[in-house]
């Protein structure tokens, strides 16, 4: 149980910089998820915390120790790898007990702790099998078991679910969440899947190109993205982004159509400013088929849109249409089937729309 702190942490591979001086404080028992597109430096950051990668600059602290120069075995952390990295020549039991055995624990203690971990993860029946005789989900659980038996200060996960099929991934996601509630420990979890990030994290760290773009709770990051990158990355389907400029308290879009500036941002815009209007698909819905549309008419814009394509998903449909010459996605809630070519009256929840400065891509909300 310990906090983790990164101070101006830099990683260079020769001339290539993979991580550009990031700062991050991870609280005691906190579940922090690092997300970002491929190659943004998530794994590198995690591996620097683990001690599997040299730190080129800055400091990493676990608890109150600076661990820059400590080898992995002295950091008292556990790691779950993307490929599980189970020892193929050992039984599940020996896989779980390996770390304790190396640490010189008594066989009795090892047996107890292995039994405890196996119990938590439902592995008790499988202890005598070898990894080759397990399914993907079971291997995943063994990897997690191996991490928890040692009672480490922190767990590090590097895309632990990416080798599982969608259904199993959902199950394991829930198990990881449960695990965190059972064995309260600091967890740093790397994924490029924003759903995993949203569901698991106490706090999300969005990374891009070796920089941290935003840190916040899932709802903060979802509701108040600091720039267009975070806005596009978090949330699925991604936020629609429409370029335009400000004229007389209105956003003028590419085809000269006008949308009022969301009331909460009214004071933050400059006349003539080039902006990007961000609206999540959930906030554009055919009249009567929306979810949580604001009651107040001033917070809603109404417009007629022609449907290009609809993907029914059961109780909701994803709709592709065009606003101001740009393809946007919208959501229809309810079992209604719509046909391409149909024209419907849509409502846009202005209260939840975002404005970003077109030049800096930063949200006007935070300025």
């Amino acid at each position, binding site marked *: 149980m310990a906090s983790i702190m990164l101070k101006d942490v830099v990683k260079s591979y020769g001339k290539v910089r993979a991580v550009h001086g990031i700062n991050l404080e991870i609280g005691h028992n906190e579940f922090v998820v690092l997300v970002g597109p491929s190659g943004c430096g998530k794994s590198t950051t995690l591996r620097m915390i*683990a*001690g*599997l990668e040299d730190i080129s600059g800055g400091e990493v602290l676990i608890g109150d120790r600076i661990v820059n120069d400590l*080898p*992995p*075995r002295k950091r008292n*952390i*556990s*790691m779950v*790898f*993307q*490929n*599980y*990295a*189970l*020892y*193929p*020549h050992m039984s599940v039991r020996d*896989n779980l007990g*390996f*770390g304790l055995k*190396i*640490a010189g624990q008594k066989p009795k203690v090892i047996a107890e702790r292995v039994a405890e971990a196996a119990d938590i993860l439902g592995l008790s029946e499988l202890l005598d099998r*070898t*990894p*080759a*005789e*397990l*399914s*993907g989900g079971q*291997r995943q659980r063994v990897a997690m078991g*191996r991490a928890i038996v*040692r009672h480490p200060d922190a767990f590090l996960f590097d895309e632990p679910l990416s*080798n599982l099929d969608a259904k199993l991934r959902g199950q394991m996601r829930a198990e990881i969440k449960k695990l965190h509630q059972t064995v309260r420990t600091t967890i740093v979890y790397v994924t490029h899947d924003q759903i995993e990030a949203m569901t698991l994290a106490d706090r999300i760290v969005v990374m891009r190109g070796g920089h941290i773009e935003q840190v916040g709770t899932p709802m903060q990051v979802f509701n108040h993205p600091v720039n267009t990158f975070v806005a596009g990355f978090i949330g699925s389907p991604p936020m629609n982004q429409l370029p335009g400029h400000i004229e007389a308290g209105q956003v003028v879009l590419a085809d000269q159509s006008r949308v009022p500036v969301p009331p909460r941002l009214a004071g933050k815009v400059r006349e003539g400013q080039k902006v990007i209007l961000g609206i999540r698909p959930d906030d554009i819905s055919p009249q009567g088929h929306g979810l949580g549309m604001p009651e107040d008419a001033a917070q809603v814009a109404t417009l007629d849109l022609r449907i290009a394509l609809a993907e029914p998903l059961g109780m909701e449909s994803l709709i592709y249409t065009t606003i101001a010459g740009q393809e946007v996605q919208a959501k229809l809630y309810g079992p209604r089937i719509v046909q391409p070519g149909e024209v419907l009256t849509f409502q846009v929840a202005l209260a939840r729309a975002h404005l970003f400065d077109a030049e800096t891509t930063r949200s006007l909300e935070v300025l």
Partner: protein
Amino acid sequence: MSTIAERAAIRRRIQAVGLWLATFLLMVIMCLPGLWVVLAAFRPNREILAKPPIWVPQQLTLNNFAKIFGFGSDQVGIPVLAYFTNSMVIAMTSTVIALVIGVGGGYAFARFRFRFKNGLFLGLMLFRAVPGIALSLPIFMLWSRIGLIDAQLGLIIVYVSLNVPFTIWLIDGFFRQIPISLSEAAQVDGCTRWQAFWKIEFPLARSGIAAAGVFAFLTSWNEFALASQLTRTTDSKTLPVGLMDFTAQFTIDWAGMCAMAVIIIVPALILTFLVQKHLISGLTFGGVKG
């Protein structure tokens, strides 16, 4: 009336029988000379040389073996035991050394980045491509300068250098198959890199190391060309070179030669059998990815 399924089954049968026949023929072609040698080792010389040939042995005898070991009535007087000891010592020692270097080198090539790595690897392989016999003259001159002619050590050095490129290459391949994350997991679990190597990577590469060992041993055990140049007496002569003792100016003692050939073959067979369990132990890498 045959259904499609029946016809497919018949076709599979025919294929299976054909495959079996082909394998059998191949094995016959490959094994016949060996079989003849083994049989001849237990037959008297005159039966071997009889004309017309006697195909089915009529007399089996252990005389040939007794003879070359110096027992029995007609002694051949070839120091087989000394040759055997030389062969064993030289092949074993050079194999162990080649394996130690092979494991170290193979691990280094598989895991570490260092300057000139690719060039070095290529160099090793190219060195292996040079036929050993082409080096015999330079080695001979060098060895005679430093007194390694007719010494076990001389052959050991030659065989080690002959085998090392191959052992490195083979073992490197096996280490490459083992994901780095296994060693990393072990290090996070509390191992030093050295412990991680011995407890995780070495056991997983064992079949590869065993294979490399067998090949190195057989190479040293069977090598003739260089040994015939670099050895003179019972101090260092190996079995394959000793085989030539049976050819006198006008006669060849086929029976004795074959008996000795059997003595050469048997340890190699035994070793291969002992290690084959490891060779095909089918180490499944199931712990890594589904």
